[in-house]
């Protein structure tokens, strides 16, 4: 074992293994820094590749299509074909759920930016230029753009849904104090750096190979088959890597792959569709924005007795993944807090805007913005420190019951928050900030420490399964494949670490390969933070099978009992003998022993039934906490984040460097969502912030120099995950709610006792609206 202790783990932490639980670099890091890692648009195009660009009705967001005139498009030099809905041989739908997402519009326009036709041309430039020339006449109707308009029209994409715990009405009525409020939480554009892209290559028999930047190759495969009316088996979807996903390529990558496939089918030539950034931002879904109306009742001393909350979510024109997304908002309407009684309502409101979709946290973040606003409001009205209110209302160390009836058995939030409170020097900084604010005229500082409890597993139970395929070749080199996709999160290296660990070899003996539906079928999307939990386990199952057979061969050679065979250091040991791993592989081959196998894993203990609202939706919870300090300029609303302290629970981390990358990156992405990232739709339903010039994700200077991130020493996951690690993809994003609460805290100093009416994102303008309200009151 390594003589030097890993600085990110405490003595109680499970020890690093030979390969796993160590900080290996990202599988592609060396290629990425040289520009040698290939994304879809970098793959050498087959000869004759055509390029596809979408066309849409530029003037309308909603209404019947009266006429489509594509004569100028067809006449443009270089144009080979123009595809419309009439060209689709199969089903004109690419919805990931209940339907309602036409690949190409037919009959009516449902949102501004909906694709009506697709231009196929010899160059991308010709396709883009020609795509602007179509004329789509629409009997335009005024669109319902926001939540209020959808409520007024009483229009939803899916039925309302509620959780009820205890008798909330009675509990709230009987409570000594009630407090209520409304907060608006903005949406978020994914802004993956690589836009949506797919290359479809026609093969013999009408089969298609689709190279696609997607978190869900299986869905691309199935959807291409459905739209082209061919069997799933005639389509291979493959993804080596994405240039970022964040949920934006879970369902939203499919349409572009389908259109490319349709173009390839129609022309018999390879066809590539890479969306221009503005088109990408206009045409693909985003995080749901919401209005949250809430009421909390407490005992007069801040102990919550009952909660009544309504999440009014803007879903856009179709259901997409909104069922699961908004369910997860409800699943996180408690965060780490124990409500004796609760009524949690969600409405999935239909607007005439792009369909909102998965985004890191999958609805959870909006729930947690609500919980922390509620607690902040309690603290402000009681004149107490919000951290005390948070701790006062935490779930008990064991045995609390969530509003959806699951018992919290793995709660570590008490000790985690206590440790962060100490390590961040929270109390002393609180005093210093109070003193600063007492004398500072223009600038006000704020401090907040917010907790996180996040449920891990797909709440759609059947998705909690994964497959892997592992080959050992006769020279001892190993190829691994699994259903998970690589979007930068480090899944491939984590799974490779598992494979190397189990075979007792080094990482360089394990060949990582592109995710393809031809090797592992019927996979789930890489989502819900579940990538390494599911695929790591599936790979381990496959390796265990192969290693077991190899061990039998080795036991025979060494003349030792099977349980004395050991795989380590690239060799196989038994008694006082050993063989190189490759030598044993060769001997297995000669002995006619299979060196390839599949692994299959289904997460145990997932029993959630959405209809009856019973059972456990989650295998376990991930925990974390963050402390944020900010300074607000009360003349202009400008804000800087001064310091961040994070303590996060990854169980026994599979790869501390990768996990810290997820924590820091997720946090900054969440901070952007709650501060500078503002989606602006105009009254005509057009997105006005459709490029990075107008939609502002964080830059390097938005991240404080004082940024302290530590992994919590939890002793490992209490349930049997891969090496007792915990999922990490999504949870850290919600730690950024600390920044929003810190801004709230800074504004509170303007008028103690009054809850600042701050909505998210806290742009300078949003902050000034709150400042004005505070000063005016």
């Amino acid at each position, binding site marked *: 074992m390594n003589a030097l202790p890993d600085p990110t783990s405490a003595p109680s932490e499970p020890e690093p293994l030979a390969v796993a639980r160590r900080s290996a670099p990202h599988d592609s890091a060396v290629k990425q820094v040289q520009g040698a890692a290939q994304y879809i648009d970098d793959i050498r195009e087959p000869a004759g590749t055509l390029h596809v660009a979408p066309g849409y009705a530029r003037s309308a967001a909603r209404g019947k299509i009266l006429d489509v005139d594509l004569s100028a498009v067809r006449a443009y030099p270089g144009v080979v074909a123009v595809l419309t809905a009439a060209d689709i041989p199969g089903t004109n739908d690419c919805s990931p759920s209940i339907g309602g997402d036409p690949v190409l519009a037919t009959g009516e326009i449902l949102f501004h930016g909906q694709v009506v036709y697709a231009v196929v041309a010899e160059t991308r430039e010709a396709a883009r230029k020609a795509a602007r020339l179509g004329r789509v006449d629409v009997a335009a109707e005024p669109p319902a753009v926001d939540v209020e308009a959808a409520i007024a029209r009483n229009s939803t994409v899916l039925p309302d849904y509620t959780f009820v715990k205890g008798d909330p009405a009675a509990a709230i009525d009987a409570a000594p104090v009630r407090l209520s409020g409304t907060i608006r939480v903005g949406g978020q554009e994914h802004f993956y750096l*690589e836009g949506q892209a797919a290359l479809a290559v026609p093969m013999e028999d009408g089969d298609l190979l689709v190279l696609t930047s997607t978190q869900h190759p299986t869905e691309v495969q199935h959807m291409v088959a459905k739209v082209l009316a061919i069997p799933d088996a005639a389509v291979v979807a493959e993804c080596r890597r994405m240039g970022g996903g964040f949920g934006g390529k879970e369902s939203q990558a499919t349409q572009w792959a389908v259109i490319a496939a349709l173009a390839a089918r129609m022309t018999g030539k390879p066809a590539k569709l890479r969306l221009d950034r503005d088109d990408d931002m206009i045409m693909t879904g985003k995080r749901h924005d919401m209005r949250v109306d809430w009421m909390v009742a407490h005992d007069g001393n801040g102990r919550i007795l009952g909660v009544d909350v309504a999440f009014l979510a803007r879903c856009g024109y179709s259901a997409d993944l909104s069922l699961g997304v908004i369910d997860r908002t409800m699943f996180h309407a408690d965060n780490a807090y124990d409500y004796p009684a609760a009524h949690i309502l969600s409405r999935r409101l239909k607007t005439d805007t792009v369909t909102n979709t998965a985004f890191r946290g999958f609805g959870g973040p909006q729930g947690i913005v609500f919980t922390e606003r509620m607690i902040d409001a309690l603290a402000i009205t009681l004149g107490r420190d919000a951290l005390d209110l948070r701790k006062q209302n935490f779930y008990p160390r064991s045995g609390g019951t969530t509003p959806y009836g699951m018992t919290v058995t793995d709660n570590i939030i008490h000790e985690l928050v206590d440790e962060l409170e100490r390590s961040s020097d929270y109390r002393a900084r609180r005093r210093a900030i109070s003193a600063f604010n007492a004398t500072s005229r223009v600038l006000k500082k704020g401090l907040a420490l917010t907790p996180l409890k996040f449920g891990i597993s797909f709440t759609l139970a059947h998705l909690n399964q994964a497959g892997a395929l592992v080959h050992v070749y006769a020279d001892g080199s190993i190829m691994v494949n699994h259903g998970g996709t690589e979007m930068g999160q480090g899944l491939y290296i984590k799974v490779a670490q598992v494979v190397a660990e189990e075979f007792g070899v080094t990482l360089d003996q394990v060949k990582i390969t592109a995710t393809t539906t031809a090797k592992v079928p019927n996979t789930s999307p890489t989502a819900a933070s579940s990538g390494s939990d599911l695929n790591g386990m599936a790979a381990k199952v496959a390796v265990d099978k192969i290693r077991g057979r190899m061990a039998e061969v080795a036991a025979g050679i060494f003349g030792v009992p099977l349980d004395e065979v050991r795989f380590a250091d690239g060799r196989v040991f038994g008694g006082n003998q050993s063989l190189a791993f490759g030598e044993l592989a060769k001997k297995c081959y000669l002995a006619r022993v299979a060196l390839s196998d599949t692994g299959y894993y289904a997460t145990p203990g997932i029993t959630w039934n959405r209809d009856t609202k019973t059972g456990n939706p989650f295998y376990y919870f991930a925990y974390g906490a963050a402390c944020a300090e900010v300074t607000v300029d009360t003349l202009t609303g400008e804000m800087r984040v001064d310091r961040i302290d994070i303590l996060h629970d990854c169980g026994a981390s599979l790869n501390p460097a990768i996990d810290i*990358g997820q924590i820091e990156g997720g946090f900054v992405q969440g901070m952007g969502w709650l501060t500078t990232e503002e989606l602006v739709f105009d009254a005509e339903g057009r997105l006005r912030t459709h490029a990075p010039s107008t939609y502002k994700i964080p830059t390097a200077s938005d991240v404080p120099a004082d940024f302290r991130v530590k992994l919590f020493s939890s002793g490992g996951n209490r349930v049997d995950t891969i090496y007792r690690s915990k999922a990490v993809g999504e949870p850290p994003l919600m730690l950024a709610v600390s920044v929003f609460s810190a801004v709230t805290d800074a504004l509170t100093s303007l008028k103690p006792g009054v809850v600042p009416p701050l909505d998210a994102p806290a742009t300078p303008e949003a902050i000034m609206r709150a400042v004005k309200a505070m000063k005016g009151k």
Partner: protein
Amino acid sequence: MSEPSRASIRYLSSGRIVEATGFAPTATLLDHLRLTRGLTGTKEGCGEGDCGACTVALGRLVDGRVVYRPVNACIQLLGQVDGAEVVTVEDLSDGGELHPVQAAMVAHHGSQCGFCTPGIVMSLFTLYEAGEPVGRNDVLSQLSGNLCRCTGYRPIVDAALEACDSRPDHKPADAFAARAAETAARLAELDDGQDVFVGSPDRFFAAPASIDALASLYATHPDATLVAGATDVGLWVTKQLKDLPKIIHVGRAAGFNTVSIDDAGVTLGSGATFAESRAAVAAIDPDLDEIWRRIGSEQVRASGTVGGNIANGSPIGDSPPALIALGATLTLRRGTTTRSLPLEEYFLAYGKQDRRPGEFVASVRVPKLKSDQLFRAYKIAKRYDQDISAIMAAFRLTVDTGFIREARIAFGGMAATPKRAAAAEKALVGASLDDSSSWTLAIEALARDYAPIDDMRASAAYRRDTAQALLEKALIELAGETTRATRVAGFREGTDERVA
């Protein structure tokens, strides 16, 4: 053109001269690299120069030395790179060994999805080659035009500090440094003083070698599009898909980018980039350093020019309000005729400037502050770095024993053009810096000076309120309050550890 001209452009790439001819006038450098040369390491993230994934380094001779600056290849026209060394991410590793910047990015786990990584590596490469001591703020400034959506930047900043600031003498120690003299010689050879004219009289890319040739060519083709940095024109090509048949690039005209300083002021040649002019304007007042530092990104500042920012006439151009408050004058030239006018008079109405056919911005003259003049300037945007301003504000007050004798106030983002605040200027005369009650009339008067509009950057109400708040802030500061107590960033006193 009467002079003999060259019908191709030439640039240096990995020690080879690459010659291009017959290209479309608006062909971009990125398409040339990816589609023509098959160099796919450089990525397209946004196509508008805002994400930096397409960053490449351009090496040019400055005082005989090769200086590398980062540019966004997506909006850089191919013709603009004539005479430069073009360095892409593929060029950095040396015989299979990673460049120090690349190695540090790997060691610090600075890439996740990896799509922004080539651009980040190239931005940091130019910082490495600069051979100066590098602090955290230098790194942040260098990365202002490189968006990363995965890492949260911390590991990238750490990698930059290790790679760029670990050598005691700060001198670059890579293959580029080793062959710097040879590169300089090759670049000197490419600088042949010839006018470049690629195409035909009705469809061309031209890059005149002198100001006179530029004036003459533009007078002949007043319908041509003048291009300096292409940080705006590039988007007409990539986003509006405009066909611009005649392009005249001003960047090769010798002396067009001259920055000269005398006792009374600074004269900026129209072709001087923000990077080239920053030190000269910063010497006038620290707030100008901050304004210049926050214009666009490092890539935009390396290409974009002050002249272009003015000539463009954008209501939200970042530099005109400050220049107007300082009393800058503009010199325009058409053929051999020149004329000058106060900068504010150049902006006539939305999208309309006092520029005649064939006339171009030649230079801008910026007076220094007199000993009795005080200056403050502010930029308000959603994001600190690389954001287009919602509001720009600049104030120059002439003060006599604490009383304001004269005020020049200019705002951007408050009207269809950069515009002075006549009513507030008048109301401020006679006010005392020491008596905040004497400021009220002027602050109220600002509401009469402007009728701002709502857009995606800010509402009219926020613009109105904040304009007033900025005047108040300026007066609070000029009355003696330290900016440590009035600002969250961009302090005038000492170094800000958070942000430059």
